[in-house]
């Protein structure tokens, strides 16, 4: 049993002013070498915050606690300084919004070139060559022109490619892709995803893929963790989770997707809204919106337990039967 590349245990992120409010409330997951793992959920569930915590990039108003093991080394997630050396070199993040993620007054050449030289100590000339190689690698048609350009002169898709090139330039072991296609047109989305896929395969990188798009997750990932209101509610292989969802929330999400695809006259929705930070119940956070909820759901917070083929944090999962197997016995 090989050790996972990245393993997060009991990550909690709380507001610095008010520790009772936690955008991320006890999240544990792992990613093996070469795997593509998805963190799925709707806006506000805490998936982006989770990814920022991995690199110690949370804004000052948030504080993280938890244990992280990367490549055999232990990290205390509340120590941003300790996590800093991982940035780029080991783990590189592709940000969500290409429109605001590049320095607007510095040319692409400068930004990418800086990265290349910082991570690999190349001379200016060699670095310039490498910049163009990277740009070509991510599918940019005129590397010379784009290198001299400024971010505002490029389209959203091009900027995202530049950001991917920047991630590649660092030669990391793992990529975190934070909703890499959300800000892009659907036509461009597919191209970017294919690009990511091939790059990961070529370089043998692992990927943490953050998204709310179940379709993309289905196409490009091996395993998935479903998040809701700061907790992981289901985890398993992508096939299992999407074809036989155990947690009512996952089930509802998949239902919505299907109703779109089958052209049903009325799209299915999940009633209610994601509870704001201050409004999260002690028990299962999804209970107020759940059709299967009982009284006990509001008082006790369910743990992730084996249910069907996946793990689900639910007292009344879809298959109805679940074997209470503790997390430590679950084969990784």
């Amino acid at each position, binding site marked *: 049993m090989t050790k996972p590349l990245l393993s997060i245990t009991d990550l909690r992120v709380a507001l610095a002013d008010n520790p009772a409010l936690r955008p991320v409330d006890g999240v544990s997951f792992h990613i093996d070498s070469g795997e593509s793992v998805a963190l799925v959920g709707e806006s506000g569930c805490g998936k982006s915050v989770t990814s920022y915590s991995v690199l110690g990039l949370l804004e000052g108003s948030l504080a993280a606690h938890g244990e992280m093991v990367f490549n055999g080394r232990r990290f205390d997630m509340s120590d941003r300084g300790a996590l800093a050396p991982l940035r780029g070199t080991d783990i*590189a993040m592709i940000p969500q919004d290409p429109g605001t*993620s590049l320095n607007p007054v510095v040319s692409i050449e400068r930004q990418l070139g800086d990265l290349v030289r*910082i991570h690999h100590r190349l001379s200016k000339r060699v670095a310039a060559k490498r910049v163009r190689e990277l740009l070509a690698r991510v599918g940019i048609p005129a590397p010379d022109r784009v290198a001299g350009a400024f971010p505002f002169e490029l389209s959203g898709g091009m900027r995202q490619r530049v950001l991917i090139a920047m991630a590649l330039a660092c030669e990391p072991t793992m990529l975190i892709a934070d909703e890499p296609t959300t800000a892009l047109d659907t036509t461009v989305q597919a191209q970017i995803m294919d690009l990511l896929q091939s790059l990961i395969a070529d370089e043998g990188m692992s990927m943490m893929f953050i998204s709310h798009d179940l379709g993309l997750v289905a196409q490009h990932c091996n395993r998935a963790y479903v998040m809701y209101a700061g907790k992981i509610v289901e985890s398993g292989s992508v096939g299992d989770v999407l074809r036989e969802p155990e947690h009512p929330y996952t089930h509802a999400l998949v239902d919505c997707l299907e109703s779109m695809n089958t052209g049903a006259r009325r799209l299915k929705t999940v009633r209610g809204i994601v509870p704001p930070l201050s409004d999260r119940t002690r028990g299962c956070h999804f209970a107020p919106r759940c059709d299967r909820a009982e009284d006990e759901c509001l008082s006790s917070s369910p743990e992730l337990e084996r249910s069907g083929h996946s793990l689900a944090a639910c007292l009344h999962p879809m298959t109805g039967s679940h074997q209470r197997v503790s997390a430590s016995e679950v084969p990784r």
Partner: protein
Amino acid sequence: MSVIEAVPDYDRPPKVREPAPSSGRLRRIARTLLINAAQLGIVGLAATFLMFVLLRTIPGDPARTVSGPGGSVSPEQIARIRSELGLDKPVVVQYFDWLSAAAHGDLGKSLVLNDSVTTLLSDRIVVTLQLGMYALAFALLVAVPLSVLASRFTSDRANRSVRLVGTLGIAVPSFWLALLLIIAFQNVLPTFGYSSISDGVGAHFQHMILPTIALGVGMSTLLFETTRASLIGTLNSDYVRTARSFGIPERRVYSRYALRNALLPTVTIAGLEMGALMGGALLVENAFAVPGMGRLLVQSVLARDYTVVQGCILVLVIVVVSVNLLMDVVYSFIDPRVRTDNA
């Protein structure tokens, strides 16, 4: 109150163009400059024309000024003086006469002092320009490092203190600050007069320190408040976080990503405030008895020396327009997004 927040379009947002190759940037900057120069030139000329017309049409006869106080001047003499001064021609003709003479460097003769206007002005404009430049430099040198420091503190109380500083900067007028400085430093530094650089750098700066501070403090508080806010904004921006996420060392993130972007609005505001700075310079000069344009202008106004007043206004308009143009140049160099800036 923060002036910047209260004014809706104080900052000129750059006009972002659609994607295009970035060749020939210098050519485009030059073209922008020419367009702006033309616009500002027209506006400047209109301003001088307005002044000219006002000075001619509002009661107060230049002829009387020349003839001196004391009412016993005959109407024929007045008429003679008027035709000497060219005051009997239509206003527009007078304006063009004056303008074409001015283009040749002839601004006429002072009605009161026995000197050509050009001579009077050229001695003094240098002084005023020096004062203005020193004050601007002072403001930037004080405001920017302080705002870097103050950007670390983002609590409510810190924000309120900064606001208070900004408010004080507006509320304490430069001429009063000048007086306070005179009171405080009267035995330590010279508090009036001027000494040119050619007469000794040391004496020059000794005479200029207090006026510079009096003039520069107001602008420095404004720049401090806005630069700090801007810096806090950029430090929280996506591109700074992305740069950090790729492992760029913090020092470079701070200088090339955060500060570089944060200083853009500072430059804009400094440029916009230059006009007010010039106005303040006039007052400070009077407080410190510095022989610049300000003193000349005030004395001429009090003496109703119209030719000198016109000359001063012209020069001041030229200075203000040139400063605006300069700011446009600087801005188009530091912000690649700026192209043709239509008012």
